[in-house]
């Protein structure tokens, strides 16, 4: 929405040849074009404590002489060997670099990772050379061999593994709340879970304990997040999990919790 307003301002200044690429960033990516990232982008993630995937596309012996901190090296067998280590979360930021910036090798890797569905891929502007020239920290020795991406939890969000553990072993200070619809609950529910459809939640607040943590789930996490926000407003100690909780229609009592 900002670009047409900026264009108007430019015209007011007397510029005669002003255009707007109104479809903007999403259309640029969709057309298969590459995106570049800045060094400041990496530093912002570090400042925020946000996780990102940084890939050094140079041969291992060169990366060993100096690479960006946290960079994962490209396996000798190529990028495909790393695919399984990529997170399920497709909005995870991925930054690629070579020696000099948007080289052919970087563009090829960019296209491949984008084709896997990742939406926030960028090629580091100026590559390793620019990083070194700017006097930024350089790590020596072999680059990392494994991608360790941890999506930052949202306010109120609970780690999936911690949730699974709670389902396995109920805690005295917590209650699991299932906010799926009655028809979904009929197909199965987690052991010891209290069930109140999201739709009825605000009328049934009195049924919930104020002295325990209420851990909410649904089938994907969308309704659980809404329920969390409603309970938080009503003064409850609540949390939710962004997970797919699926119940086996054939075998009663069997369920799967996945991210």
């Amino acid at each position, binding site marked *: 929405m900002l670009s047409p307003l900026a264009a108007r301002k430019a015209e007011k200044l*007397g510029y005669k040849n002003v255009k707007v690429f109104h479809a903007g960033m999403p259309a640029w990516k969709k057309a298969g074009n590459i995106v570049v990232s800045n060094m400041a982008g990496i530093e912002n993630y570090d400042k925020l404590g946000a996780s990102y995937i940084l890939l050094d596309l140079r041969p291992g012996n060169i990366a060993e002489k100096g690479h960006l901190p946290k960079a994962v090296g490209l396996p000798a067998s190529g990028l495909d060997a790393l695919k399984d280590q990529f997170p399920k979360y497709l909005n995870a930021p991925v930054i690629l670099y070579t020696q000099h910036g948007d080289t052919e090798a970087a563009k090829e890797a960019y296209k491949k990772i984008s084709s896997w569905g990742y939406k926030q891929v960028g090629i580091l502007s100026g590559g390793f050379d620019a990083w070194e020239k700017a006097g930024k920290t350089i790590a020596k020795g072999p680059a990392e061999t494994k991608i360790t991406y941890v999506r930052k939890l949202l306010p109120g969000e609970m780690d999936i593994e911690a949730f699974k553990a709670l389902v396995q072993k109920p805690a005295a200070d917590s209650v699991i709340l299932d906010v799926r619809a009655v028809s979904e609950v009929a197909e199965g529910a987690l052991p010891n879970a209290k069930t109140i459809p999201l739709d009825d939640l605000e009328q049934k607040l009195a049924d919930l304990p104020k002295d325990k943590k209420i851990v909410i789930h649904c089938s994907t996490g969308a309704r659980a997040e809404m329920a969390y926000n409603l309970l938080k407003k009503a003064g409850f100690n609540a949390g939710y999990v962004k997970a797919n909780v699926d119940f086996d229609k054939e075998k009663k009592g069997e369920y799967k919790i996945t991210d």
Partner: protein
Amino acid sequence: MKGKALTVLALVAALALAGGWPLIGAALADDKLPSKSDQSCLKCHEYDKSSNLFAGKLVDVSSKANALQLQIDKEMEVIYFDDSTVLKNAPSLKKIPKQESIRIIYLKKNGKNFAKEIEVKKGIAVPKEKLADADEVAKLVALGPEKGKYVLLDSRPGEAYEQGHIPTAISMPFFAFDKLQETVLPKDKEMLQIYYCIGFS
């Protein structure tokens, strides 16, 4: 008519008391609910002077619960809808991209926020001759600013630019336009300038 509505309201309130519901929602008359608006909306709209209105960014829609979540500054509001909800400027709720600015006229039903009307913010119309598409920009980018004789300007906030931008683009956040124009914009008034941002769908 008005008398009847009041009686119904009193009845709802009495029921609410008996049922132990939070009374606030049910006791307020429909036409006097407080408005809440994201600061970014208040730059151009006086939503704070109206009532029954939520203006913010769409976070999520659940078709299973007929509910949506709206972010207003740092707060989240959950708002329910049904077939009677009027939708403007979008073919369906599911088709509205996340983070889109929307405006909701709401009332309270059974103590819950209920959307009477949901309106998606309309894009600013740009005349055809002033529009550039991805192909045109890609051709220029391939030539580079010198050969292509253009300046590509990114109107998004600086952080978004740093995370990822179109090659050869210069960062010129819209809210810093006046401050940056002298240093960033070309001296040549005939030179092609192309602006882009997060786009619309």
